[in-house]
């Protein structure tokens, strides 16, 4: 069991994303000690309202990720529509317009695999509701790099396929309901 402390959280969600994210992101405090990077599959009509919607509900700062910006705590970064979001080894964000992965751009795998490389054991990866198998390879990469792998309980997910696929690829992932995820994320960083 790793004793290193958590440095970052990555989350992937597809169909049902807004509802699931709205269950726990608004509970995170304004001074949350970690950065949170999120890929949500969006229809490719490029005009994302997701960031604005979540921003209006959250205390923590929510914004669309910008290329090469340094990753900071207490911030939720959303992948912009039609771009992959990656974490560079020097803990900056980068964007790419490489081909879609699992028909998706942004792809959860692309974020999770690059974040696993950058953070290793310091990463928490969470796969939420969705009707895709994107995120399964990524979650396995998080686990293999020594990070913590979580999936939303498929039985409680709006669309169970994505957490189910992630669990099959990464059987040691912890299965949690949305209230459990809320508690988990809020207790990841103990007050000093």
């Amino acid at each position: 069991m790793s004793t290193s402390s958590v440095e970052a959280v990555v989350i992937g969600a597809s169909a049902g994303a807004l509802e699931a994210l709205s269950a726990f992101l608004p509970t995170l405090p304004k001074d949350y000690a970690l950065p949170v990077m999120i890929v949500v599959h969006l229809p490719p009509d490029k005009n994302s309202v997701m960031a604005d919607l979540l921003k209006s509900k959250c205390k923590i700062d929510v914004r669309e990720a910008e290329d090469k910006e340094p990753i900071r705590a207490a911030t939720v970064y959303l992948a912009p529509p039609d771009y992959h979001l990656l974490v560079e080894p020097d803990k900056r964000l980068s964007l790419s317009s490489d081909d879609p992965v699992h028909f998706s751009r942004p792809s959860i795998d692309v974020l999770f695999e690059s974040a696993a490389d950058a953070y290793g054991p310091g990463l928490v990866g969470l796969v939420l509701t969705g009707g895709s198998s994107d995120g399964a390879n990524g979650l396995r990469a998080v686990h293999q790099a020594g990070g913590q792998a979580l999936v939303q309980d498929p039985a409680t997910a709006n669309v169970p396929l994505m957490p189910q696929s992630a669990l099959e690829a990464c059987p040691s992932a912890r299965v949690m309901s949305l209230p459990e995820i809320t508690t988990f994320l809020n207790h990841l960083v103990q007050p000093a």
Partner: protein
Amino acid sequence: MYNKTEDIELRLLLEAIYRRYHYDFRGYSMASVKRRLTQAQERFDCRSFSMLQDRVLHDPTLLPELLSFLTVQVSELFRDPSYFKAIREQVVPHLRTYPSLKVWVAGCSAGEELYSLAILMREEGLEDRTMFYGTDINPDALRRAEAGVFDLERMSLFTENHRRSGGKSSLSDYYTAGYGAAVFDKSLRRRAVFSDHSLVTDTVFAEVQLVSCRNVLIYFDRELQDRAVGLFKDSLIRKGFLGLGAKESLRFSQHADAFTEFSRESRIYQKRGTA
């Protein structure tokens, strides 16, 4: 860091490609380069980046395909129609005031962007006074750009993009369809030059009124982005225009002061008269 060995191997592979073939990817965004080289590693049946390095050092015939893994991007004609609409409605009125024009598409890949601009300039009646330069480091991409052949099944998307960009003609006027391919009209590249040029290692080659370089800078680290934007700055005439990708900006660039935001929404910048 997780798997430090692989990270070392990756750096050494890029160093080897540079020393042996003078293609310099050392200042690229490593996360993307790693994804692409991992695909190349699988394609060439190599167990590690070290093994791939051994292969590519000793077998130059591997290089073209490896370059394609590292550089090729599939784009669209009139990708982000609002960008082309802004060029058409806001930039073209300025371009009209010049007796002759030069347009540089930097990182042109298979030519989608250059053909889009050539069609736009023809529609606006500026084609006859314009020279188009399409540059890339990948010889294979340049050959494809020169050929001007695109997948026929992508034409419905391109047609829709063109329409949304404010196109004044029908896209089908510009290509002939056959055998699953759309072959673009040769006359569109009458005034186009496709050539090998690296934003990493080469210098200014022309004085231009418009540089279009979209979704290229995101593959570079900060330092390399600064170099490329510096090159654009030095190539542009005073009051010349620079168009970037939808999620690229000059906000953090060391050359930010040399430009004004001309169309914030469409990521079009104008070089200052004093820069």
